[in-house]
Each structure stands twice: as C-alpha cells, then as structure tokens.
C-alpha cells in the first residue's frame, strides 16, 4: 500500500522542492532519506508494587519493636506479594508484540538492518 502511494508522494515532494511556481516550500540542507533505525521508546514508569503490604509489615514492626517472630503473617503476605510482582515482571519482559499489533523498536531495527535503503547503485 505504501508502494502505490509512493509515486504520488514523490511527485508531491518534488513539487514542494522545485522553484518553478514561486518560492520552494522545502529547502532541505540534508538529502531527504529515512534512517535505517527507529528511536527506542522510553520504558513506561510503572508504580511501586506491594506498598500496602510493606507499610502493614513496617507498622507491625514498629508496634512490636522489630521482633520478627510476632509479625510472621504480615511478612508472609509481603513475600507472596513480592513473588507475584517478580513473576509478572518476568512475564512482561519477553513480550514480542505491542498493543495494536505493532512491532517493538528492537524488532523494527533488526528488520530495517536487514533491508537498508540503498546508498550506492553498485
């Protein structure tokens, strides 16, 4: 679909560059060529996990003067929460497709590296 609109697009660009109909719209100082890589996205800043369990456990510590045997239930809750959070982190790390059926920037870059824009005709 990009190939069909490609010729029309090229004609539009050349019309913007030419000086026949008054001043040109574009005056590029570098050749109008796309790069062979995509900028990587900033990883989304998540929220801190297990804060409620952490605060409950610390309140229990404060009450019992940091004697841990009295706070075993809160500590077990905290550990289970941390384990779940780590498991979910592991699952989300190896995801291949973003939402919307698009590729990750890494995958896009590998594909573009395999098929770069030709700089020379030789």
């Amino acid at each position, binding site marked *: 679909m990009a190939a069909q609109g490609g010729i029309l697009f090229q004609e539009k660009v050349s019309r913007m560059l030419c000086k026949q109909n008054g001043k040109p719209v574009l005056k590029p100082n570098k050749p109008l060529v796309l790069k062979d890589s995509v900028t990587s996205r900033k990883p989304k*800043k*998540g*929220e*801190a*996990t*297990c*804060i409620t369990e*952490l*605060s409950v*456990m*610390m309140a229990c*510590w*404060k009450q019992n003067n*940091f004697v*841990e045997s009295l706070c075993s239930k809160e*500590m077990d809750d*905290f550990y289970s929460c*941390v384990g779940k*959070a*780590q498991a979910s*982190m592991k699952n989300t790390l190896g995801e291949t497709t973003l939402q919307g059926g698009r590729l990750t920037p890494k995958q896009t870059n590998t594909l573009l590296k395999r098929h770069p824009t030709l700089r020379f005709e030789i």
Partner: protein
Amino acid sequence: SGSGLQIKLIGRARAGSGFNTRGVLAMRWSRYNPYYLEPEVRKEVYDKPETELSDEEKEEQSLKALRPIKAATNSVTSSVFHDPVISKFINMMMKHGNKVLAREIMTETLELIKRKQVEKYHKAPEGKREEIECNPYAIFHQALDNCKPVVGLTSIQKGGKYYQVPVPLTDNRRRFLAMKWMITECRENKHRRTHMYEKLSQELMAASMKEGNVFKKKIELHKMAEANRAYAHYRWW
C-alpha cells in the same frame, strides 16, 4: 590465569605441547556453546520411576540423550552431605582461590559449634536437653535465616536529591547480604589473635539465638527502612 585456562592445546606447532602439561584439559571456564546442557547432579532426580515423570521432565530426559552436557564443577557432588548454601559460604570466604583453606575453616567452625553444643547438652539438666540443638548445620541455617534482611535500601534520585528508598530484595540478594555481613563482621570486628573458625562459631551461635552484631546490623537496616517508608512511592518497579 583466566586467559591461560581458556587456551586449548591444538596442533604440534605450539611450544611445549608435546604432551598435556596440565594433566587435564581446562574446559570448564572456557565458554561453552549454549547448545550444551547443565549436568544434573542430584540423585533424587534419577531415583524417580518412569511413571511419576511429568511430560516436561520426559522431554528433558529425551533431550539429554541427544545433546552434549557440560562438565560438572569440582564443587558439586551427589553425596547426601552436599549443601549448596554451605558451598556458597565457603566460596565467599575463599581468598586468592585457596579453596582448601576456606573448606578447612568451615569444617573447623562446624566442629567447634558441635563441641560447644554437646558440652552444653551434657551440662544441662534433663528437662532442658531437648531444646539444645546439636546439629551444626541446623545452627548455621538458622543463623543465616535470622540475619537475612527483608527489605533493602536503594539510592533513588528525585528532583535533584538522592533518597534512600526501601525496596524488596530477591532471595539470592538476601542470602548474599547475610553471608557477607557475617564474614566481614568476623574478619574486622573481632580480636585479631583469634582464629577465624572461633570468631565464626561465636557469631553463628549468637545469630542463631538472635543476638550478636550481625543480627543487630539487620535490625538497624530494618529500622532505617521503616524510617524512610514515606519514600517507598519513589520506586517505579
């Protein structure tokens, strides 16, 4: 010595390669092809009858018949006395690769703990004898468990300033911290003319009773984390 271990003796052109001067080919620390599988040392895995294996385990076993397997390190054994925690502790105590000395210290420590506990056992009245733990391995594990911190503090930058944020730790990190504190405490804060095994045994027995400097260090870390609990939201993972 790292680069030397990775060089294999190939061809007669190399000087001094008329015969294998090392005795064994140093293969373990050379980088294995990722195709190689890890060796399975534990006996229980092989004692399981065929019927009890799940599908994944059957697949793994069939894979092991086809793929090459890495050489096992010298430190792993299939004996009943093999304890990975104690092996890790010995490795952390080791200096300049002197594993023999580190193992000696560990065995002397365990022996000394046993002696002290047996002495206590025989001196105790009949009613109190069941409470005294004579197994040095149990005391070691109990001491380490008592010294493991639950949360750690990391430095996080926010708005130009650095804050100490309480953060949950992985199991490996907690175990490492407990062992590291134990070893540094014994090396630095004791009288210099005592042997390492004496210092270690004292500190391990104190930690198993929830006393001693290492336990105090853990409690202080918890107190710091509790004091900084307001900054817990600065974490983003």
